[in-house]
């Protein structure tokens, strides 16, 4: 009896033991551990350390998701990106205070582009013959993204890639923000596999994506090692991926349309006119 009383007192006097979170990968809408079983420390948090096989799985998930996502109506994609903005707004406290407002606004901005791009980037072509001739933008396919460290940077590179109908595999070392953002995306009706996030080292994982036959585009914005960037671009050349070279933009500036257009294809359709 005396022992039970003592235990109760002991529990009352010490703080509650909190539940720690392991920041796992985000692949195909699920949060798996790395198949390698490895983790790494990110500011005192445990995060899964992505491997080559995780990269392979992520590309597979991205490819599987491409048909449905690229075939969704532009209106629907815009709605989902706006939903992601709503979810992010609701979880503001979990993100860096100095970046989260801009990040929400950026999602809203790109959400609005979904059903305007075809009008701005497309054209009706006045060919010199009796043909109906129209050019429209279409997504490139699966895009591998090496994300910049900052949270606003992450949102600013992912949103333009997916709003047009691409799916992506993101590599980042900033696991805490990235995986918390994945939780935002996972609750935004974004189909699984549209965004896949591999936390770990760009130098280890990105070469497998740059040389992957089923990846169509490569965004090197967040690559900090110039030598690695050249090597990745060279590898991407083997399968003629569309490559966005590294840069360090001011993320609070007007982003323009360049991050969307680099991963768009223009399709021109000809049809005769006649009675």
């Amino acid at each position, binding site marked *: 009896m005396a022992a039970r009383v003592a235990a109760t007192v002991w529990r009352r006097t010490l703080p509650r033991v909190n539940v720690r979170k392991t920041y796992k990968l985000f692949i195909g809408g699920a949060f798996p551990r790395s198949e390698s079983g490895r983790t790494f420390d990110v500011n005192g948090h445990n995060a899964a350390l992505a491997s080559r096989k995780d990269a392979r799985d992520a590309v597979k998930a991205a490819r599987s998701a491409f048909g449905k996502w690229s075939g969704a109506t532009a209106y629907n994609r815009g709605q989902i990106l706006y939903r992601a903005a709503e979810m992010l707004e609701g979880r503001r406290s979990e993100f860096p205070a100095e970046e989260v407002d801009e990040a929400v606004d950026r999602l809203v901005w790109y959400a609005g582009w979904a059903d305007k791009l075809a009008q*701005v980037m497309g054209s009706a072509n006045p*060919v*010199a*013959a009796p043909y109906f001739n129209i050019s429209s933008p279409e997504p490139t396919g699966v895009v591998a993204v090496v994300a910049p460290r900052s949270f606003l940077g992450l949102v600013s590179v992912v949103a333009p890639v997916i709003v047009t109908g691409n799916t992506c595999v993101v590599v980042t070392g900033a696991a805490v923000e990235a995986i918390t953002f994945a939780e935002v995306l996972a609750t935004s009706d974004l189909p699984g596999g549209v965004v896949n996030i591999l936390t770990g080292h760009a130098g280890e994982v990105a070469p497998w994506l740059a040389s992957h036959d089923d990846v169509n585009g490569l965004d090197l914005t967040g690559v900090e090692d110039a030598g690695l960037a050249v090597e990745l671009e060279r590898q991407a*050349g083997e399968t003629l991926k569309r490559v966005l070279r590294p840069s360090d933009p001011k993320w609070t500036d007007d982003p*323009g349309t360049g991050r969307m257009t680099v991963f768009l294809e223009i*399709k021109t359709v*000809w049809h*005769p006119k006649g009675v």
Partner: protein
Amino acid sequence: MAFEYAPAPESRSIVNIKPSYGLFINGAFVDGPSGFKTVNPATEEVLAEVAEASKADVDKAVKAARAAYPRWTRIGGKERAKYLFRLARIIQERSRELAVLESLDNGKPIRESRDVDVPLVAAHFFYYAGWADKLGYAGFGPNPRPLGVAAQVIPWNFPLLMLAWKIAPALACGNTVVLKPAETTPLTALLFAEICQQADLPAGVVNIVTGAGPTGAALVEHPDVDKVAFTGSTEVGRIIAKAVAGTRKKVTLELGGKAANIIFDDAALDQAVEGIVNGIFFNQGHVCCAGSRLLVQESVYDEVLAKLKRRMATLRVGDPLDKNTDIGAINSAEQLIRIKNLSQVGEQEGAEAWSPPCDLPRHGFWFRPTIFTGVSQAHRIAREEIFGPVLSILTFRTPAEAVEKANNTPYGLSAGVWTEKGSRILAIADQLRAGVVWANTFNKFDPTAPFGGYKESGYGREGGRHGLEAYLATR
């Protein structure tokens, strides 16, 4: 009933081919290292000796282009436009000469060089001339800047047309250029150099260096070029994409293709057969966007095949300068070997070849129009670009199967779809992963219509408003 055609040769007296040509650098022809002979592929007659530019020659050409760049930009779009209009007009005025020379050097029928290539060349210069002083309205910001010096390497299948696709938008945007024509077809580019002189185009704005692979590599890898534009094989495209890694160079690549031409059972079959013939036999099949994989719905397979064979039997193969000729000469001995080799592989792998009976000239490089039946998707002739008058025929049952087979290729340049059902055209066109989709037509081109590939057929677009982006600093 067989129709007999009397020969109707176009006179070659309109062209004046010099025994040898130098390099066109800084507005003048200069001597270059003696290089190679360019031959008429229809006769194997030597047409001229052409210089093979060395690394040092390429450097001179790039320096000339660099020196001309500030002034060419500074004179402004309004003045640049007038130079381009001038070029377009001279091309029109000398169109017969250009067409005959193109057919002599390339082997393509005069009917095509006269009615397709050269008119499109003039139209392309007219189109981009008009853009030169309107770039601020093109959707790339209020005052888009040119890139600088453009290195341009073009193929032998449409020598002058590819030159126009490269040079016209580059100059309109305010860039200066160094262009390398293909080693087997340099003559119309060298005649274009004369046209630049005739137009009083400022020296150094256009430079033309002849040569083969090493000359092209020296040009692409030159540290002082800001832009690389290449049309040619996917194999060389990969090399270029790797070579420019880590540089500031903006790149556009227009590479190979293995286009599906899909015939649904409700298509207007006679029209479709014309489209099939045009799709694969236009320009001897030396067309990156050729409809080289025919996908026929099973229910009309026998009918389409019979009609196609009947139509192919009327194709006239022979003298490119004969106005009756449908199919001219294969461009080079090397290309002929490649076509023969892949065709042999087709038979070895179990496909069945058929060609109409036709006599081929005794000299020159020739290949009969050929179709392969019994082709599976795994056959090399269904996967690799043959770049010749060789069609692989496959079948399908459902629209979904047609789309899956059409997209089952690393290429994505073009595709064709034939059906009388409008909604089906739109749905299929949406699903085809190709940069150009021809519905109930094939191999149509226009300066206002963007052209270029998905996937390993390259990136960037040529033609239309979109074609400007390749030559402007847009990000």
